[in-house]
């Protein structure tokens, strides 16, 4: 248990600070609107073109793939499928847009080959399942797909790989194949959405918030008076903000990723950021894993690089808890934890990433972390009182535009 200490710094008028914070946010919003108006996103040369498509278009694509296989069989009795390679050598870093993308390298998988006959059979089975899901306009989880033919897939990792392979073959994202992963994220705050014919007010969902649905193709953003989005790694910290109804004082949408961000949470965040054009911030633990989680929101994961344009939020800022905040906000020494070997290794790996190196403020914070070799959780701020996060730390960080 951390000892309670008084917060440092001169006393600040909360109303004046709030006014300043709101001004900073509105300036950021206007700037973002200008940038969006000038933006014309273009994929770098050699990157695979992937699109989010409606169910009927995805269904047609499954039929086209099946027909091409049928034609090959009728012509030669042998058939193959070109599957985009998802190996690390085929991942492109799009420096302009800060995204990880899949290149155009293909692997030809033959059915009449001992090395690929099993893969191909599994892939064709996935094609059949996706075709049925799209035709019936229903969704299935990856786990359900695995149980559809346990003898064939043997392990879920095999069906999961085939699902991702098929998505790339269809040049679409996995959600467009109606195969979804269970979601753990929650959202609350100044946002109204439509889920088919239901209108859902995210301010009226109780302190628990709205559980982000994996069926995001049914969800549409319809109204909002939020002026920023705050993504929080820890559910406990999100609960603190939710319980305080913090969005009423600071007009925002709060998203809790509950640890490593799942696909639905990242996709929902991306959609909010793209549609509402409001500044977006991330609050994570002050440790290398927190920075890694921020990087996943920022530029996507290597595993799902082909979906990056639909999952990554390249203009998300790391609001905290920064390494320098540990001293600036007087996090007591007893609330800090020494970094272990794994932390130091991960921190060094982060420093080696090209997307980190192009951001000097990020590099500086990680270098400071390497120097002091200390980490702290978001909750360590409660050493100054349970309301310190909502009444002091976050308002001060926003008012001073102190983010990465």
């Amino acid at each position, binding site marked *: 248990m951390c000892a309670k200490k008084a917060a440092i710094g001169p006393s600040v008028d909360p109303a004046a600070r709030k006014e300043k914070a*709101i001004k900073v946010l*509105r300036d950021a*919003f206007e700037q973002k*609107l200008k940038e969006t108006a000038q933006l014309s996103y273009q994929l770098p040369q050699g990157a695979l073109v992937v699109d989010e498509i409606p169910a009927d278009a995805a269904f047609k694509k499954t039929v086209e793939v099946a027909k091409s296989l049928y034609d090959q069989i009728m012509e030669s009795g042998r058939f193959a499928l070109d599957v985009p390679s998802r190996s690390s050598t085929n991942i492109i870093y799009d420096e302009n847009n800060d995204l990880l993308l899949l290149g155009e390298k293909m692997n030809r998988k033959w059915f009449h080959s001992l090395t690929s006959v099993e893969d191909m059979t599994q892939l064709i089975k996935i094609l059949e399942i996706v075709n049925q899901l799209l035709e019936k306009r229903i969704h299935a989880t990856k786990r359900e797909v695995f149980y559809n033919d346990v003898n064939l897939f043997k392990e879920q990792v095999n069906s999961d790989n085939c699902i991702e392979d098929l998505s790339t073959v269809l040049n679409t994202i996995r959600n467009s194949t109606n195969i979804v992963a269970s979601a753990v994220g929650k959202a609350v705050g100044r946002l*109204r959405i*439509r889920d088919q*014919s*239901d*209108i859902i*007010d995210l301010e009226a969902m109780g302190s628990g918030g709205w559980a982000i649905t994996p069926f995001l193709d049914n969800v*549409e*953003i*319809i*109204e*909002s*008076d939020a*002026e920023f989005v705050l993504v929080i790694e820890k559910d406990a910290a999100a609960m603190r903000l939710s319980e305080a109804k913090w969005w009423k004082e600071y*007009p925002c949408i709060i998203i809790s990723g509950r640890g490593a961000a799942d696909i639905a949470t990242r996709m929902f965040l991306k959609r909010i950021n793209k*549609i*509402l*054009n*409001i500044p977006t911030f991330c609050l994570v633990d002050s440790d290398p894993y927190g920075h890694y989680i921020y990087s996943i929101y920022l530029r996507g994961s290597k595993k799902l690089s082909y979906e990056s344009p639909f999952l990554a939020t390249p203009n998300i800022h790391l609001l905290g808890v920064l390494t320098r905040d540990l001293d600036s906000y007087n996090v007591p020494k007893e609330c800090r934890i020494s970094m272990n070997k794994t932390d130091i290794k991960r921190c060094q790996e982060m420093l080696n990433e090209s997307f980190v190196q192009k951001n000097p403020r990020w590099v500086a914070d990680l270098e400071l972390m390497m120097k002091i070799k200390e980490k702290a959780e978001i909750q360590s701020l409660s050493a100054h009182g349970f309301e310190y996060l909502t009444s002091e730390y976050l308002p001060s960080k926003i008012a001073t535009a102190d983010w990465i």
Partner: protein
Amino acid sequence: MKVFRLSDGRIVQIIDKDKIQKWDPATPALFVNYILDKKIESYGSSKDQAEIRAYLNEILEEIAVPKLTNALKSPDPNVRLTIAKNLVDISKKKADMVKGVLSFLQDAERNEKEAGIKANIAQVLKNYDKAVKRKQYEAKRKKMRELDEMLKTGKISADDYVKERKEFLVLGVETGAEEE
């Protein structure tokens, strides 16, 4: 999104008309009604609210009403039945949502020849009516607590109390609510 900058500096964003155009026939009217019922009062000054009301009216006139009336007047009974059933589902969950389309539903009920469709439209109107009465019943229940105290202290006559009590009981029967 259509961005409204309110006079106090706040920002409100409402979905563009071209996106609403793709919705099913019932939802645009329900959406307009939702904003008017639940949100508009929080949108700053009366001038700001008037600007947003004007946009909502555009949605209503250009999209919501044509979509709804076209569907309710469709020569295809399946289209009429589908929308009537959708509205029944919505009115069961949130009866307030159909408030903005009541006049169209009353017309549709009068003109509908198919018994099944007519019954569904009538059900929507009944659900709405029941929800309104339930609200009245809840308000009356609250009032009855005050009247009970007033009766004890002699601040209300027995006759007046009985009159109020009778209205409360009638509303309870009409809404199917149990007496407390």
